[in-house]
């Protein structure tokens, strides 16, 4: 295992993550499929990390501004995705209390 090509390491991570995702998502209750979609939406905006790297180099040229636009787009998703999921899940909570009462 002296030097493995990073591509191979990435491929390992990729395949294992797909398996984890597959098994975790099958356990999601169908009633929460819409929140699942909005939360995965928020998670896919992890692309914000890439956008930050694009906007982050010290030797600034126009590429930084392209990255900055990507930062804004991804940030809309991060906040929008998590907050709207929260809002939906809170609706399931409210009923829970009333149902018990």
């Amino acid at each position: 295992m002296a030097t493995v090509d990073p591509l191979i390491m990435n491929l390992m991570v990729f395949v294992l993550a797909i398996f984890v995702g597959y098994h975790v998502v099958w356990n999601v209750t169908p009633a929460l499929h819409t929140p699942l979609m909005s939360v995965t939406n928020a998670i896919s905006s992890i692309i914000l990390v890439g956008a930050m790297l694009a906007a982050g180099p010290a030797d600034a040229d126009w590429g930084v501004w392209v990255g900055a636009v990507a930062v804004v787009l991804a940030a809309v998703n991060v906040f929008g995705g998590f907050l709207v999921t929260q809002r939906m899940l809170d609706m399931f909570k409210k009923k829970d209390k009333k149902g018990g009462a």
Partner: protein
Amino acid sequence: MLSSNQVALTYLVASVFFILALKGLSSPLTSRRGNLFGMIGMALAVATTLTLTHNWLIICGGIVLGGLIGAVVARKVQMTAMPELVAFMHSLVGLAAVLIAISAVNNPFAFGIVKALGEAIPHGNRVELFIGTFVGAMTFSGSVIAFMKLSGRMSGAPIVFTGQHMVNLLLGLLMLGCGLWFFVSEGTNWTAYIAMTVVAFILGFMIIIPIGGADMPVVISMLNSYSGWAAAGIGFSLNNPMLIIAGSLVGSSGAILSYIMCKAMNRPFLSVILGGFGTESGSASAASGVQKTYRSGSADDAAFLMGNADSVIIVPGYGLAVARAQHAVKELAHKLREKGVTVRFAIHPVAGRMPGHMNVLLAEAEIPYEQVLEMDEINSDFPTTDVVLVLGANDVVNPAAKTPGSPIFGMPILEVDRSRTVMVVKRSMAAGYAGLDNDLFYMDKTMMVFGDAKKVVEDMVKAIG
């Protein structure tokens, strides 16, 4: 400044949080904690990445600006508009992926893709950039079309023309050709890269236009999956495991949802994607010419029957959401329960415009989720149920699904026809989206109540008093 090992370890922790976020959704009780885990994971990943970058002012400014927009949208959006919002957010992920790839092609040194400034991008990385770009571009343009169809800015009808699949195939080959050109060129060939990106945008657009509005639950799940793959693709380009892990989680989640939706409609995934369903209008059933008789009644009659029943199951469809009748329905269920009637809701997997949409709409109306049952949980209870009230649903209760030869044969349905009495609230006798007549409406035990779902339900509430 964190070392790259520390960064990688923090990314690992963030990935575990993301997995816990998805795991939390296995029950409404743990779901909110799950969402919190997701936020923590994201905050960790972003904070860690910040230590790797300069230009903090630009980055933080961008996050604040985007975050404000996102927060306002999340607060304002109507629950009936969730599918549009999700499609809109997919398009942002796709566009962000393309922009990052452009930035990486422009300055590969900043991403550690090349060892020295001005060096040509290695061929392996070019393939990764190519994949990240075209998946992102197709996610973007496809989601824009899905958004326009869902929000009614564009007709939901499938747009088909002869030779469509051939055109798409040629576009696909053209895109691959441009990618190959980009791959073999000396140095950075912007012409090839931009041509490839433009073709990918057009292809994403072409792939979604032939898909009809009623197949949207599949499309939106598929784009959900694409947005994950786009993030993973960029992760490969930037050699960033955080993006690969989170992207793959989302990608497989979307793929599973697409599969579930196709299964619930009994349609092969490929035929949904090739599109055009719903264009060959229901001429076959309309041409039969035999005038079948049905029984219709008023909201008062229906209310009387329900009020005297022991058990009632309500089957809501998207027509209920369109009429904004959720709150009236809640009132009806409440009134019936006060009279000692057992009331439950039965949800078909494709009720609504996206997976689980109807559950959210009922949750918004504060109907306790214990009373809302999935198809598999409730199907065996129909024979012992006195009254079933079908509100704005059609194909998902059509017994033709049990008849070999029917276009919807094999589709799992809510077996409403096996209950003692059925009441169907509908605007008219028009066929559902599959263009099929529904034998349920002509059964002796069925009573049709014509009118707007909200108006009818409100009248029922009044009649029960």
